C-alpha cells in the first residue's frame, strides 16, 4: 500500500476508534427509540380500536371506518423516529467541533503528538472529515435497517385486516423527513449531504482559524463564515437584483449554487491547509 494512503487509513481507523463509543450510543439510541415507536404506536391503535368496539358495541368494520386502517406510515411519523434523527444531526454537529478541540483539552495535549506525526497534516484534517461522514452514514444505515425491521414488527402486531396497504418503502417515501436523510431521491440526498459537507468543511476552517489566531481567529472565523453564507445565498438574490423572478432557470440556479459551494469548499480546504501547516499553535 502506498505509504501516504496507509497513513491516512491509519489515522481514519484511529479516529473511528475514538468515535466508536459515541457512535454506538447514537446507533443504540436510534434502534431503541425506533423500537418504542414500532411497538407502542400500533399497540395504542389496537387498544383504541378494541375500546371503540367494546364501548360502542361496534364491529371491526365500523371501528375501521372510525379510526381508519393502521399503516406503517403511522408508526414512523412519530417523535420516536424524528427524535433520534435530530439528536444524531446535532450530535455530529457537536462532534465536528469536538473532534478538533479535544486534542487541546485537559493537561494531556494530544495535539502535540498528532501535529508531530511524519505525515502531511492534511491527513489529520481528512481523517477527521471522513470519520464524521462515516458516522453520519452509519446512522443513515441504521435508520434504513431499522425501518425495514420495524415494518416486520408492526405488521406482526397489527391484525392483517386492520393493516393498510402501504409497504415499508412507500411509508418511507411518504415521510418528508426521509426524503433528505435516506436516498429516496438520490439528488436530494446528494444535495443535502453536499451542503452538509461544505458546512462541515467551513466549520473546520473556522475552528482552525481560532486555533491559529485565538481571539483574533474568532473574529476572522465569524467574518469568513458570514462571507461564505452570503456568497452561498447569492444565487437566491439574483432574481431580486435583476428584479425578475424568471431571469434564471432553476437548473441554472442549482448549477451556480453547486459551483459556488464547490468554490467555498476548495477555498476552505486551501485555507485550512495553510493554517494547519503554517499557522496552527499548540
Amino acid at each position, binding site marked *: 500500500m502506498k505509504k501516504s494512503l496507509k497513513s491516512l487509513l491509519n489515522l*481514519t481507523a484511529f479516529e473511528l476508534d475514538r468515535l466508536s463509543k459515541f457512535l454506538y450510543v447514537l446507533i443504540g439510541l436510534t434502534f431503541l427509540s425506533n423500537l418504542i415507536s414500532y411497538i407502542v404506536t400500533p399497540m395504542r391503535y389496537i387498544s383504541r380500536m378494541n375500546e371503540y368496539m367494546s364501548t360502542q358495541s361496534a364491529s371491526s368494520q365500523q371501528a375501521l371506518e372510525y379510526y381508519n386502517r393502521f399503516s406503517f406510515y403511522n408508526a414512523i411519523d412519530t417523535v420516536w423516529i424524528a427524535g433520534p434523527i435530530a439528536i444524531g444531526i446535532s450530535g455530529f454537529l457537536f462532534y465536528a467541533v469536538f473532534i478538533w478541540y479535544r486534542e487541546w483539552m485537559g493537561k494531556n495535549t494530544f495535539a502535540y503528538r498528532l501535529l508531530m506525526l511524519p505525515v502531511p497534516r492534511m491527513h489529520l484534517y481528512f481523517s477527521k472529515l471522513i470519520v464524521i461522514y462515516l458516522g453520519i452514514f452509519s446512522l443513515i*444505515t441504521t435508520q434504513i435497517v431499522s425501518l425495514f425491521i420495524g415494518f416486520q414488527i408492526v405488521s406482526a402486531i397489527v391484525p392483517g385486516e386492520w393493516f393498510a396497504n*402501504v409497504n415499508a*418503502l412507500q411509508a418511507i417515501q411518504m415521510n418528508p423527513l426521509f426524503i433528505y436523510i435516506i*436516498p429516496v431521491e438520490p*439528488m436530494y440526498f446528494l444535495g443535502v449531504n453536499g451542503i452538509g459537507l461544505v458546512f462541515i468543511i467551513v466549520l473546520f476552517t473556522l475552528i482552525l482559524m481560532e486555533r491559529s489566531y485565538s481571539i483574533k481567529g474568532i473574529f476572522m472565523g465569524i467574518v469568513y463564515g458570514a462571507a461564505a453564507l452570503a456568497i452561498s445565498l447569492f444565487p437566491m438574490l439574483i432574481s431580486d437584483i435583476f428584479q425578475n*423572478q*424568471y431571469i434564471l*432557470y432553476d437548473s441554472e440556479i442549482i*448549477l451556480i449554487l453547486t459551483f459556488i459551494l464547490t468554490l467555498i469548499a476548495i477555498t476552505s480546504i486551501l485555507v485550512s491547509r495553510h493554517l494547519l501547516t503554517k499557522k496552527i499553535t499548540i
Partner: protein
Amino acid sequence: MTKYSKLFSILTICLLTLVGFTFYQAQAESVRPKVELVTEEGQAEELDLLYFLGNVHGYDSYRNNYNTTFEYRNGEMHYFDDLSILQKVDFNFTPRMNRYTEDYRSFMRGKSRQTDHYTETDEYLLYTGMHSDVNWRQFNDNSLTISLLDKETNEETAQEVHLTGGSYQSVIAAYLDYPSLTLVTQALDEDSTNNWLIYSYDLENPQDEIAPVINSKHTLGSPTIQLSDSQSKTGRYLSFRTLEPGETDEYDYVLNHTTSGYYVYDTVTEELKEVPSFEEGETVVLTEAETILVGNDLEDDIVWSEWNFEDDSLTEQGTASMVTPTIGRVQVHYYDYTFNQGLQLINGRIYAFEEDYVEDMSRPLFQVIDLDSFDTVFSGYIGVETNLDTSQAELVVYEYSLDYLLN
C-alpha cells in the same frame, strides 16, 4: 482483528445498505403503468395534436405503489422520472409552457410562466405580461411588456406599454393577427370592482400608453364575465359570456351561477355584440379565424349554426351527436375567468373533452367532430394499462393542450 477491521466493516455495511436500498427502490419503481389512447370510434390520428401532462397513481395487489407523472405527446408517454434532476427542476406542469421553455429557452428567460401570457402562430411567439408578473416584489404599476419572437430569424423585439383605464391589471389573453394585437385584461376600477378591458395595439406602431377600447363590464352590464378559452388566440372574434347568480340557500349563499348571455367582440371593427339565444337548450359559442359557430346544446346533440356578426343572421350547419350529454360542456364556476376549456374549434374540427368517471375512477374522454360532415371522426378515452393485477389506478390530467400548429 486488524486495526482496519472496524473501518472496513462499517464502510461495507453502509455501502451495502445504501446500494441495496437504492436497488430495492429502483426495482419497486419499475412497475410503470402505460397510458394509451383507446379509440372507440374513428381514427386515433385525429388526436395527434393532443398534448397533456398527467399523473397515474395506484396500488396493485402486491402492495406495490406507483405514482408516475408523465408527458403525453405525439401519442407517446415521456416519464417525468426519466428526466435528469436539472430537467426536472426546469419542468413546467403546464404543457404549453413546458414546450416553449424547451424550444425557445432563450426567449423564455425573464418571462412569466403563465399560458395566458403567450400567443403562438406559425411565424411568431408573442409574450404579453405585466412587469409585476416577473418582478414579484414590485407593486403592479400597469406596465405591460410586449415581446415578439420571429421564429424564422430568432429575433426578439420588445416594447413597454402603460395600460390606462384600471389598476392592478392582469393579462387574460392576447389575440394576434400581426401586426394587430388585441389584449384582454382584468383590472380594478375606482371602486375596486373587477373590470374586463379590451385594448387594441399596433405592433408596428409602438405607443407608450394605451387606453381600453371597451370596458366590457360597463358595456355588458354584468360584474361576472368569462372569456372563451382559445388554444390558438389568432381568430378575428373573441367570445365572452356573462353569469348571473342562480339558486341561493337559506343564508342567501349563491349555490350556482347560470349563463345570462353570450357576446362576441370583433377585433377588426372593435364592436361587441350579443349572440342570439335559443328558446330551448343552452348555447355554446366557438370562434376561429373568421368563423363564429353557435351551438344549440340539446345535451345528446348540438345543433351548430354559423352566426354572421354583421347582419346578425344565423345559418344552420349541421347537428353533431355528442358521445355523452355533457362532454365539452364543463360546469360553470363563477370564479373562473375563462370558459370552453373542454371545447375547442381548431382547423375546422371541434375537440371536446370531459373528465369522465367510471366506477369512481377518472377517465379522460375525447371526441373530435369534423365540421364538414358533423361526423365524429374520433371518440375514445385515455386508458391506463398496467402489467400487474391492478386493484386501483387513477389517472389525472393536469392540463391538456392541443398543438394546433401541428396540422
